[in-house]
């Protein structure tokens, strides 16, 4: 076929075939390459060059067949019509199953080229495939590759032009499986190999008796890793940098002189000094909260999460968590939204697409918005409560977990619809690819930087204007029956609740100057998590749930905030 006429190329295949690694090889762009089924939910686009002309390469969500079972797979099927050429990535260690999608693709009108990925692993497992014979039988180019090392990628590109629009063959599913059986007999031989150590570890980590303690250990280890790295970065990198920065800001402060302009740029001086958390100026709090308090933990978190994903551990956690999540009307995959949400609620909300039914997506998204704090928020909760003792931080988390569980039980009961069972492939453990790991961490951190910084600045600006025109006071008085009456907080906390809509991390910082006792801080931090999602998450929820379901969800959030905050007040503060 004429490769010059090709504009869009689709990368398609089953989940866990290393499709995203192929994608990053071909484009060299920053992309998420992951082992977890459905993680490439928002498809990624990139540019590639073939024989001097630019093509668009689209990384289509992984799918087992062209009969979609969830919205992520629906995306995959809908994209079929857009491509001029399909690169079908196959896991060589699992040829038979992968060929079903291949035969389905060959029934369409788009030319296909087959890439036999993980060629090295197949050899290692005693699997021999004859690619020339397979090419003859399928009638399209077949190229063995190892995406991790780049082996065969050049050959793959040079063979793209050798394909053609498929000749019309119509086969029923049953005929396809018979056809596949015949193909396998001719092209593949398997030599029996004993269980490898990784296969044994795989079994141990998914059996409940050993898997549950290991899972708990992995989660705790990840938590301590994040804290250790985050604190290390703050102590050895961030604080020395801000020590250098302070004299510069003080100089600017003197140059500006007092007035509203000073309040916005530098903020209020406390005893003649800058207080990076309380001053509320663009160059002080606006810089310090995102870079000084949040970024180090975000970096550590996303690195840790990427390791869990790329090694293939997450699906095992999903299986172990399945029984519990069923009680909430979800299944084990719901834990993925929780994990992603702990980084940032936005990808967390997007990941609800891997769930099959509307009921599941609604429950998963609502629970996420109600009771999962993002890393930025968690870092700030540790920042303001940690100094009083770790038990206060724990109180917040216990309250949030209790909220998640009780809301989940209630929603499962009262939301109509089906909750299908878990049906999840558990990929073999794989050694993560260092470069992909770093690229992925960087891509996620970059999203934080570009999304968070503007909102923090906007928040600082907004709060200064609101204070200047006296709106905060009015709002505080208006909402004081709830804020003071039910939650037992000073009515000035209204300002934090307002800013919490823009950035929750900033909002928690704003609680500090209000002179609350630690128990009040615990209540305020919990309520700030529950009452409403931040604006970025809200925007995603509008898209994912639709206006009507979102309104329902918002009502639930407000109700949960009032009830949970009220109960905590009764327990922690008394009347």
């Amino acid at each position, binding site marked *: 076929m004429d490769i010059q006429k090709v504009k869009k190329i689709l990368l398609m295949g089953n989940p866990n075939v290393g499709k995203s690694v192929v994608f990053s090889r071909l484009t060299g762009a920053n992309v998420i390459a992951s082992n977890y089924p459905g993680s490439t939910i928002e498809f990624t686009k990139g540019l590639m060059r073939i024989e001097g002309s630019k093509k668009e390469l689209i990384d289509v969500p992984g799918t087992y067949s062209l009969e979609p079972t969830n919205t992520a797979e629906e995306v995959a099927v809908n994209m079929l019509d857009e491509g001029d050429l399909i690169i079908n990535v196959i896991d060589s260690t699992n040829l038979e199953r992968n060929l079903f999608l291949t035969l389905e693709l060959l029934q369409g009108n788009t030319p296909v080229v087959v890439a036999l990925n993980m060629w090295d692993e197949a050899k290692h497992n005693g699997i021999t495939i004859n690619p020339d014979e397979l090419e003859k039988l399928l009638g399209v180019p077949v190229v063995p590759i190892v995406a991790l090392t780049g082996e065969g990628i050049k050959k793959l590109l040079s063979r793209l032009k050798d394909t053609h629009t498929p000749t019309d063959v119509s086969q029923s599913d049953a005929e396809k499986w018979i056809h596949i059986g015949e193909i396998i007999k001719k092209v593949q031989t398997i030599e029996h190999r004993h269980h490898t150590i990784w296969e044994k570890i795989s*079994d141990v980590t998914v059996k409940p008796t050993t898997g549950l303690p290991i899972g708990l250990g992995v989660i705790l280890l990840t938590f301590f890793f994040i804290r250790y790295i985050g604190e290390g970065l703050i102590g050895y990198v961030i604080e020395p940098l801000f020590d250098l920065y302070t004299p510069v800001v003080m100089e600017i402060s003197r140059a500006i002189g007092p007035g509203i302009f000073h309040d916005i740029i530098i903020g209020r001086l406390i005893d003649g000094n800058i207080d990076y958390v309380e001053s509320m100026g663009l160059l002080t709090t606006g810089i310090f909260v995102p870079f000084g308090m949040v970024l180090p933990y975000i970096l550590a978190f996303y690195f840790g999460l990427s390791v869990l994903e790329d090694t293939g551990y997450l699906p095992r956690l999903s299986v172990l968590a399945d029984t519990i999540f069923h009680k909430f009307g979800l299944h084990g995959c719901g834990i993925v939204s929780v994990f992603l949400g702990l980084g940032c609620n936005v990808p967390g909300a997007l990941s609800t697409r891997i769930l099959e039914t509307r009921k599941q997506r609604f429950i998963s998204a609502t629970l996420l918005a109600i009771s999962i704090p993002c890393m930025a928020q968690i870092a700030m909760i540790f920042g303001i409560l940690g100094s009083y003792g770790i038990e206060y931080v724990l109180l917040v988390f216990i309250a949030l977990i209790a909220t998640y569980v009780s809301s989940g039980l209630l929603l499962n009961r009262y939301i109509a619809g089906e909750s299908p069972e878990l*049906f999840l492939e*558990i990929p073999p453990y794989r050694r993560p690819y260092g470069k992909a790991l770093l690229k992925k961490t960087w891509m996620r951190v970059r999203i934080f930087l570009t999304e968070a910084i503007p909102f923090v600045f906007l928040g600082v600006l907004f709060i200064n204007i609101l204070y200047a025109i006296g709106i905060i006071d009015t709002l505080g008085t208006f909402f004081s029956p709830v804020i003071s009456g039910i939650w037992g907080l000073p009515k000035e906390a209204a300002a934090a609740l307002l800013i919490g809509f823009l950035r929750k991390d900033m909002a928690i910082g704003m609680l500090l100057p209000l002179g609350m006792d630690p128990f009040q801080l615990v209540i305020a931090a919990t309520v700030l998590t529950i009452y409403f999602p931040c604006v970025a998450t809200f925007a995603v929820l509008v898209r994912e749930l639709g206006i009507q379901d979102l309104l329902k969800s918002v009502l639930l959030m407000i109700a949960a905030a009032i009830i949970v905050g009220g109960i905590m007040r009764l327990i922690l503060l008394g009347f």
Partner: protein
Amino acid sequence: MIHLELTLTNLQPKQKARILRLEGGFGFQKNVRSRGILEGKIVEVITRQPIGGPIVISIDKRNTAIGRGMASRIIVAVG
């Protein structure tokens, strides 16, 4: 030789069986087959999660977790 017909849910960990047929609608059957769970394949149960949790099975050295409801519609023969 007598073949004992069971469903996947009847198998205990480490037990192996051959898949005889799938029961259920077209969509279910297609979905299950596209994951490599095919008639004639040898299936081994790796583990059963407690309290009605999913069963982890291995076919062609590839592991899949499957809910008990779905597993009960997969008919197998032991021996």
